[in-house]
């Protein structure tokens, strides 16, 4: 029972972080119908940039985070403007391949800039755990969960109440309608990319602090975040959080109890298997929009 509780709590905490990563995917997809498969790559590269500021250059952590967000803004705007905008109207396949190519390029850039070396943030979040009875919660997990929840609430409020947020909502419904309402769809695309990369930067720093900063971190955008968005629905912001927590629990609890039966190593497979099942049973996820196609 203690073990179950421990795994459950950790699963929820991890799930919050997965939800945060998935949020970046959902925001971009909602507005521009581009599933950014390179999201994990951006997450990884921005976490290295933050490390570069904080460790070799010795800036305080808060300043590094602010600077990285600035870089994320420039990067997000640039990527949308230079790479994604010319692809508007191309078949979906084009965006899939372009984002995958960006993913490869970002791995290359990491090797160029940081030589593929593993790094870590020191003195950022204390590494001791908080004990709640039998359950240990690492402070990293707790922090990332709290930050994820706060960001979620902030973005939900942003989309519900702010003018820009509402514009993004309309764009996600229908580009034509949005244009007729006087919304510049292209500006909205750029804004969503900027927001997504800021989220990627935060998630990357949290993930790097939680574990290590490594090239492999990029995979979180593929093998963890994709099951999450699929479960929650590609268009749903709350779906990302709910999906994230479900996937987090499934992965951690599943690995805890299934691994002894199958000889280990199942943690990476559980989310993907879950994803395949969802695809077969309820392809548009819990909160996604079922698209009705007409000829």
């Amino acid at each position: 029972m203690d073990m179950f509780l421990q795994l459950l709590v950790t699963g929820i905490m991890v799930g919050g972080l997965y939800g945060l990563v998935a949020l970046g995917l959902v925001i971009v997809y909602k507005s521009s119908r581009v599933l950014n498969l390179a999201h994990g790559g951006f997450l990884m590269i921005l976490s290295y940039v933050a490390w570069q500021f904080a460790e070799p250059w010795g800036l305080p952590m808060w300043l590094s985070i602010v600077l990285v967000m600035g870089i994320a803004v420039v990067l997000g705007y640039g990527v949308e403007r230079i790479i994604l905008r010319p692809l508007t109207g191309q078949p979906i396949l084009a965006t899939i391949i372009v984002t995958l190519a960006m993913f490869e390029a970002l791995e290359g850039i990491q090797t160029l800039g940081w030589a593929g070396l593993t790094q870590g943030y020191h003195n950022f979040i204390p590494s001791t755990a908080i004990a709640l009875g039998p359950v240990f919660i690492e402070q990293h997990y707790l922090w990332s969960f709290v930050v994820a929840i706060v960001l979620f609430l902030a973005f939900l409020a942003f989309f519900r109440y702010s003018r820009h947020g509402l514009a993004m909502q309309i764009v996600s419904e229908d580009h034509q309608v949005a244009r007729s309402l006087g919304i510049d769809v292209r500006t909205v695309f750029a804004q969503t990319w900027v927001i997504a990369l800021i989220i990627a930067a935060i998630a990357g720093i949290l993930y790097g602090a939680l574990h290590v900063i490594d090239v492999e971190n990029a995979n979180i955008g593929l093998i963890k975040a994709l099951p999450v968005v699929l479960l929650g629905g590609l268009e749903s912001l709350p779906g990302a959080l709910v999906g994230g927590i479900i996937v987090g629990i499934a992965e951690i609890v599943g690995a805890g109890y299934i691994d002894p039966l199958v000889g280990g190593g199942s943690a990476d497979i559980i989310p993907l298997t879950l994803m395949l099942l969802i695809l077969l049973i309820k392809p548009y996820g819990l909160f996604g929009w079922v698209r009705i196609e007409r000829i």
Partner: protein
Amino acid sequence: MRPAGTFDVSYAEDMAIVRTRLQWILVALVVAFIIALPNFSGLYWLNVIILMGITLIAVFGLHITTGLCGQINLGQSAFMAVGAYTSAILTNALGAEWFLVVLPLAGINAGIVGTIFGAPSLKVKEFYLAMATMAAQFIIVYLLIHSDEFLGTTLFGGPNGLGVPPANIFGFFEFGTDFKMYYLVMALVMIMGLLALNMTRTRVGRAFVAIRDNDLAAEVMGINLFYYKLLSFFIGCFFAGIAGALWAHYFYYIQPEQFTLHNSVWYLGMLVVGGMGSVLGTVFGTVFITLLDALAYNVAPFISAALPYLPQNITYVVGIILFAIVVIVFLIYEPRGLAHRWRIFKASYRLWPYAY
């Protein structure tokens, strides 16, 4: 478009792949070049070309699944792994001389596995399907590592990998060197290339294209989506299986970690650069990207030497970034790929000196 004065007077001529005398001469020259190549290529380039041929077969498969039928497949490399393991296990069990029997079995087995993972294509498409096939990439590799534990056998070699004997024709002839392997690979590339080329012109191929252009409209026209979508996965993965088997018998050693998502992405990139839906484009794309990678491999050391302040030797980086840039540039500026450029060139050549 046809050159002026070329008319078809019989069905045979109408159906011909190679039409004009110039084309025949070109075909003959290409074949002669392919046959003569290993005599002057050198070991390194021979290796590059053999790998290119193996890749080409896998990309032909991708051309059918993704290029013709429009069903995106991000797991081609994993389906190659299925073919490689099938061939390796069967030749280890039966003996290498059964290679010619095992080869189609490897393809069929990969095709069946591909069909299973392509099943979500019935309900979903686009991103959703991309995710399903990507899941296949990871799940298949996991299963290959753990099959032995589940089955209690030592067939798969687990994470240690598996030794593979060289390909062999019924004990008479062994493809034991690169030189011999080259001809086996090239023969198969030609056969599979012809299959892929003819696929476009069959009923099945036309159904694939209809599904790619609009699957709902295709269904209304009476095309059985269930059957044809799965068929496209079967055929595409059959090609991957053949490529995987050749890979296994070329390296003499396979291990699940050789078949990565990275490879699958590169195969898709080759397809895009060459031009979706064209066999010639597939060839162009594969040759182009492979040569680009080889170029990076050979040129990067000089760049490194010239710019010593770069953090490290940059071969790996140059290759991977060149690939990404080329794919992105092609998608933005020439989404129909090299094949389209070739068509434009051909048309202007035939019309010269007139503009149209």
